[in-house]
């Protein structure tokens, strides 16, 4: 009964979304307050209904209701509770439902927390949100109904794909969806601005928190996914330039560019048209990502849904939204007036350079991902575009950003002084050079590792050069420095941390060149050296888990004879799906990791093992966490809080924020 009610709630949500996609926008065009007032309550009702549908599906998974096709295909009564809950979004139907749920959460958040927003902007934004919700609800109900019943329920389910039975999967998709769908907010804002023909600093300030939320979630979601791949796929890689990974990287690049161009717009009223275009682009790339993953156009580990009918449906949604918004853009963009002037060497100029490089990176990933598909469709010729291509094109385009980042931060708005910026960055430059020499002397190794780690140190220190000068400059005592630090806007610290985080990630990536790898057949009792460590395989023990059996290789890690850690890499077998997977044994020692994965033991009692020593590898993900922290700091900035915006509105329309 609960299941049917959930299905019914989903149909009702579609009806409400359809109503809400027309009335508020009509109201904003005819200036009818009553029609515009429909939007917030309809958005809240839609949220309640979708949330109910989602909980109904979760309920069916938790109680293992095997009369549901979705539960049979993806669950098992012996599966641990956490994977019963995360398994709801570990399949096509459920993940689309999660997509719509997140969309509804965002719409409800706008309805609840944006009282200060002008009524017509709010009505238009919620109206555009409802178009997206309606399209995806229709998609779910017509092609991917999660509530489909089976006439002959089986006694046991098929279990969830073992690769997905992992805590990482519990967090990765929701985070990524928060990011993808968060970009739908910026898209709705852009469409609303185009509909009303008005775009100003108020718009920029209202859209900024949503871009930031989307960006933070994407950053953390991508990092989480990469760590998940690192420890589950079992060969120690963390980024494969897989089309599905690229599908999440493209929106991230576009969102990063959007964040920066929106900053120019907020402070200096310039780059308006470009910002609108980026907002459309970012969400279009999220949709394309969804299409690539969901349609089965690319079949990879993630393609747990391959059905051409669905693919065509998503393609239609894609064309409608991207084509429609670009047409709207072409039609209305000329109505937006360009604003503030600036010299080429200035903060704005640096941000334009940032946008140019990020957009080019994004285009490179886009072309690289889709070119083989297009070429095969057009000429029938098959080519592969893999990691070596992206390493040769993307990396040289991205590296200059690390050099430009600290300079951009220290340049003044409107007109900057490159030499002055270099002087302010003197400490960072010296530190970078020293680090390069130190790494060369200490580790040696590949030239790229040495140079990139020096660059990373420059970026990390350079990210705080401007803040440091503002806090400690001009004869500050400790007390005045503290006061000054408190007086600075939090978003300035946010920028510093986000940039430094990227530098930290680069340091982790550069350090991969100093790692070591060994492939060996081990017998229990055998010791093998890897990097500075000695690893002893003690025993191979068969064990039993809730829905799998495994053989674990208990291994002791020693450094100079002293025990450091014990790891238990294992090889698991899931009988329900007749599949096995390796569970890597990982020990974090300092900032580096010892990584070991084993295959199934041979009858003679030896086991094939792959062992890695990866110095500083954790910095890759720690950097992403620091970036996310910077984003959160920026999000908590006083000027972005809703109450402030409300007060400003009471005293009149705020002018663009003064340039710092």
């Amino acid at each position: 009964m609960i299941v049917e009610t959930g299905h019914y709630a989903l149909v009702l949500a579609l009806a409400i979304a359809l109503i809400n996609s027309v009335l508020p926008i009509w109201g904003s065009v005819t200036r009818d307050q009553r029609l515009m007032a429909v939007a917030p309550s309809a958005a809240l009702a839609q949220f309640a209904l979708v949330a109910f549908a989602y909980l109904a599906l979760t309920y069916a998974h938790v109680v293992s209701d095997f009369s549901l096709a979705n539960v049979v295909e993806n669950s098992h009564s012996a599966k641990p509770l956490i994977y019963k809950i995360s398994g709801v979004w570990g399949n096509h139907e459920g993940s689309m439902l999660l997509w719509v749920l997140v969309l509804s959460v965002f719409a409800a958040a706008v309805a609840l927390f944006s009282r200060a927003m002008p009524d017509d902007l709010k009505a238009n934004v919620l109206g555009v949100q409802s178009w997206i919700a309606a399209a995806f609800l229709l998609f779910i109900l017509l092609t991917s109904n999660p509530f489909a019943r089976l006439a002959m329920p089986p006694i046991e389910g098929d279990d969830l794909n073992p690769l997905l039975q992992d805590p990482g999967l519990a967090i990765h998709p929701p985070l990524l969806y928060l990011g993808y769908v968060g970009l739908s907010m910026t898209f709705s804002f852009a469409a609303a601005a185009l509909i009303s023909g008005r775009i100003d600093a108020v718009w920029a300030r209202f859209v900024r928190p949503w871009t930031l939320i989307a960006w933070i979630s994407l950053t953390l979601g991508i990092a989480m996914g990469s760590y998940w791949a690192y420890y589950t796929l079992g060969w120690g890689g963390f980024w494969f330039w897989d089309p599905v990974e690229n599908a999440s990287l493209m929106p991230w690049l576009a969102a990063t560019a959007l964040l920066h161009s929106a900053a120019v717009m907020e402070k200096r009223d310039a780059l308006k048209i470009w910002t609108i275009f980026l907002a459309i682009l970012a969400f279009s790339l999220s949709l394309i990502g969804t299409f690539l993953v969901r349609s089965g156009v690319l079949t990879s580990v993630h393609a747990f849904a391959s059905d051409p009918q669905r693919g065509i449906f998503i393609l239609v949604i894609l064309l409608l939204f991207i084509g429609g918004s670009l047409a709207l853009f072409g039609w209305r963009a000329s109505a937006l007036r360009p604003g503030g002037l600036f010299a080429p060497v200035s903060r704005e100029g640096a941000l334009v350079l940032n946008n140019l490089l990020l957009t080019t990176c994004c285009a490179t990933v886009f072309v690289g991902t889709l070119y083989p598909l297009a070429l095969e469709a057009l000429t029938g010729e098959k080519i592969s575009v893999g990691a070596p291509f992206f390493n040769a094109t993307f990396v040289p385009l991205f590296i200059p950003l690390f050099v430009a980042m600290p300079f951009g931060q220290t340049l003044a708005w409107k007109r900057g002084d490159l030499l002055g910026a270099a002087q302010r960055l003197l400490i960072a430059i010296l530190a970078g050079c020293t680090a390069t020499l130190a790494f060369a002397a200490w580790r040696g190794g590949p030239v790229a590792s040495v140079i990139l780690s020096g660059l990373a140190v420059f970026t990390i220190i350079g990210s705080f050069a401007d803040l440091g000068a503002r806090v400690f400059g001009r004869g500050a005592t400790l007390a005045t420095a503290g006061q000054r630090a408190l007086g600075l806007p939090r978003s300035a610290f946010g920028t510093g941390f986000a940039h430094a985080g990227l530098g930290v990630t680069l340091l982790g990536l550069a350090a991969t060149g100093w790692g070591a790898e060994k492939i060996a057949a081990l017998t229990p009792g055998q010791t093998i050296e890897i990097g500075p460590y000695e690893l002893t395989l003690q025993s191979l023990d068969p064990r039993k888990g809730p829905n799998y059996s495994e053989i674990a290789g208990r291994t002791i890690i020693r450094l100079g004879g002293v025990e450091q850690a014990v790891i238990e890499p294992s090889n698991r077998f899931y009988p329900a799906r007749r599949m096995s997977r390796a569970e890597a044994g990982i020990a974090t020692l300092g900032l580096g990791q010892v990584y070991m994965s084993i295959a199934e033991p041979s009858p003679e009692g030896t086991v094939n093992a792959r062992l890695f020593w990866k110095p500083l590898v954790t910095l890759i993900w720690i950097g992403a966490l620091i970036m996310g922290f910077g984003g959160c700091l920026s999000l908590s900035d006083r000027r972005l809080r809703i109450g402030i915006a409300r007060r400003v509105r009471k005293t009149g329309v705020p002018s663009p924020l003064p340039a710092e």
Partner: protein
Amino acid sequence: MFLVRFAFLVLLVLAPIRAMAVEPDEVLSDTKLEARARHLSAELRCMVCQNESIDESHADLARDLRLLVRERLKAGDSDAQIRAFLVRRYGDFILLKPPFKLETFLLWGAPFLVLLAGGAAIWLFARRQHSQGQAVEGLTEAERVRLEALLREEPRSQP
């Protein structure tokens, strides 16, 4: 139909996972040759897998190819010779880094074209805005008179 294909896909991707990517018995004793083999195999596609190099893949075909690469290396072939040999056998599909030729011109050219086009657009836009900006800077006669009048006025008491 969907289920069948789904099951097939899962099998294709996951079934061989019991094996390891590079197995110990494949490793060459000559470390220099082995390093070359690893480097080469990272750039060759395992053709029955999804976007995996033969270095990472567990599939049987990948193992055969890894052994083949190592055999050719031991026979004294250069990297280019081995690549050419494999392309003759399997086509360009096996190269994860596509060769530069007519069909891939746009692929390799895209980053440069976008960078150039973007740079040119920014330059043109900046120039146009600059010239417009100068036009705005001049005052009309009426504005000048009003400005002078304002400047002559006594400053009011500070708020």
